[in-house]
């Protein structure tokens, strides 16, 4: 498992950027990384003024790859220029079901992340970078730890980096298994040794973050974009995807019932058909696609006819779903939708931190009621009740019932499947069995 096999084809005519070192032997070592052009972006960045770098990233259209898709350059510009310490927190607590790009990047190319983090800190004039790595990623943590050590040895970290006069310290920490730590304010709580429960905002972390200091929180893949923007320039970056708001390279985490799951890199905005059929080798066993989850477990499901939908932030946002963390999950036509959606509800019930009542109690009721429907101890009215519970746990407007997006995330699998597959929910409520050819909830090809 130390060298992860790379069998992934990429989009036609596309040259890999973020995953270019995946599969290269020992690319996690600084010598190999440098021999492949690594740290050139940092050297170039240190010749530039910090404000130029912030503008560059702003103009690149880079949006956060962790889930929210917030403009990275804009986030950087919110940080007030107060006296140090000022922090960068690298969010490596990737736990969104279906997402596995950060693990790949940490295990195979940790220096890319370290380089990006140093440039980020220089651009925003931050004094310390803190890498928070998901507890389960033991190998990724080990590799990142050594990458940081090597970066110190080469003078990329520490005092007076490459003679620029700029100094930066780096810290690493491992989580211990909590989905909510991927939420930026909960992550800060975890770092401060508290129970990781989201904070009420404002103030936002840019102003009051780690230890109450100005803090930038960016995810692993977001930061991995930064060295390439600096090194290869704006024009190149804007040539990928659809400028101005959906640009750059993107790692599609394709999983579920397809022939070729894995991390597939391409420009932002390829279509579902290109991803699932051309790159992913199609639905397995020659089956048809029943449902498609476009942006991780938290996004609303699409039906199996969505082949021409472009996978980018604004297209999916316009369809009342989202690109989220970039995880695409395929469900074949022998799958029971209510069962699969309930599995996700169980996840959110387990991971709800318990701070906000609508989420803590709502996710529990969703699971209870969904199980009653699955067991056939319910009727059509219970499907309505399920929908209305789910529809009322909201983060954003109009409901604003929870402090973080987990509230919303927990419900989209229920609301979107009742909207589109109400017949399956009703069938379950009435008969207590799955409307699949075998009567089983899932029919994997083992």
């Amino acid at each position, binding site marked *: 498992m130390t060298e992860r096999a790379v069998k992934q084809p990429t989009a036609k005519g596309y040259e890999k950027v973020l995953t270019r070192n995946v599969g290269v032997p020992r690319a996690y070592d600084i010598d190999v990384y440098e021999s492949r052009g690594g740290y050139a972006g940092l050297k170039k960045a240190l010749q530039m003024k910090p404000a130029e770098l912030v503008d560059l990233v702003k103009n690149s259209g880079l949006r956060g790859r962790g889930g929210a898709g917030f403009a990275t350059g804009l986030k950087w510009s919110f940080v007030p220029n107060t006296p140090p310490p000022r922090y960068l927190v690298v969010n490596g607590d990737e736990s969104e*079901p279906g997402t596995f790009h950060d693990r790949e990047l940490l295990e195979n190319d940790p220096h890319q992340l370290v380089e990006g983090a140093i440039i980020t800190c220089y651009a925003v004039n931050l004094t310390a970078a803190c890498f928070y790595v998901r507890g389960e990623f033991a190998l990724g943590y080990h590799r990142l730890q050594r990458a940081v050590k090597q970066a110190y040895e080469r003078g990329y970290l520490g005092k007076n980096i490459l003679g620029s006069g700029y100094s930066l310290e780096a810290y690493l920490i491992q989580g211990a298994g909590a989905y909510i730590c991927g939420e930026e304010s909960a992550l800060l709580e975890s770092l401060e040794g508290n129970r990781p429960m989201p904070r009420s905002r404002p103030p936002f972390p840019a102003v009051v973050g780690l230890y109450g200091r100005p803090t930038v929180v960016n995810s692993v893949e977001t930061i991995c974009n930064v060295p390439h923007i600096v090194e290869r320039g704006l024009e190149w970056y804007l040539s990928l995807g659809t400028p101005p708001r959906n640009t750059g390279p993107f790692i599609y985490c394709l999983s579920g019932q397809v022939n070729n799951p894995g991390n597939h890199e391409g420009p932002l905005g390829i279509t579902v058909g290109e991803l699932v059929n051309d790159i992913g080798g199609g639905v397995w066993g020659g089956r048809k696609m029943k449902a498609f989850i476009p942006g991780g477990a938290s996004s609303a499901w699409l039906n199996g006819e969505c082949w021409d939908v472009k996978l980018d932030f604004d297209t999916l946002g316009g369809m009342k779903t989202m690109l989220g963390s970039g995880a695409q999950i395929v469900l074949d036509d022998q799958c029971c939708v209510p069962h699969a959606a309930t*599995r996700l509800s169980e996840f959110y019930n387990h991971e709800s931190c318990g701070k906000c009542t609508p989420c803590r109690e709502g996710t529990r009721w969703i699971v209870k009621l969904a199980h009653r429907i699955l067991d056939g101890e319910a009727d059509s009215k219970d499907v309505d009740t399920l929908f209305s519970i789910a529809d009322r746990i909201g983060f954003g407007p109009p409901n604003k019932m929870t402090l973080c997006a987990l509230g919303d995330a927990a419900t989209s699998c229920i609301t979107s499947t009742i909207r589109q597959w109400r017949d399956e929910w009703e069938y379950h409520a009435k008969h207590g069995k799955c409307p699949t050819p075998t009567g089983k909830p*899932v029919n994997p090809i083992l």
Partner: protein
Amino acid sequence: MPLSEQARAEIQAAIAYYPQRRTAVLPALRIAQRDQGFLGPEQVNEVAELMDLDPNAVHMLVTFYDMLYREPKGKYVLGVCKNIACYLRGADQIIEHLQDKLGVGLNETTPDGMFTIRAFECLASCGTAPALLLNNEEYVENLSIEKVDALLEALKARPPEAAGEHRVPWGTND
């Protein structure tokens, strides 16, 4: 059993490493668990004392995080992912097979103290599903019934000193 001298030294090193002392509490708990196998009241009190925290403030972390154990587990903890991507590729069959084969249910330990089965939430191994995480750190991916059987046999044959969370399957050079 009190924490070993080495674990206490590692915790002190963690306290010195981070910009603020309180950040070290989570690393300290992981160190203590690696040393003792679990975090009962005794261990929690000891970490709290080293961290200069109220034991309650430490205990509420132990009850929150999935990877921190309140009671002893088997020598090998098999955390099988049950979330959507693995579920769609046969995770339930894997969990069922493990239960049949080992004769214990989820969150239970075999009478010989060798194996504990857990169902994990998404392990970020969706492209290589189904998957399990062994002792919180070693991924076993692309599982099949045969692969699970082979894994159990291989684990039974592992020499005793190779068990435990601190033995990683890769060398320092990897």
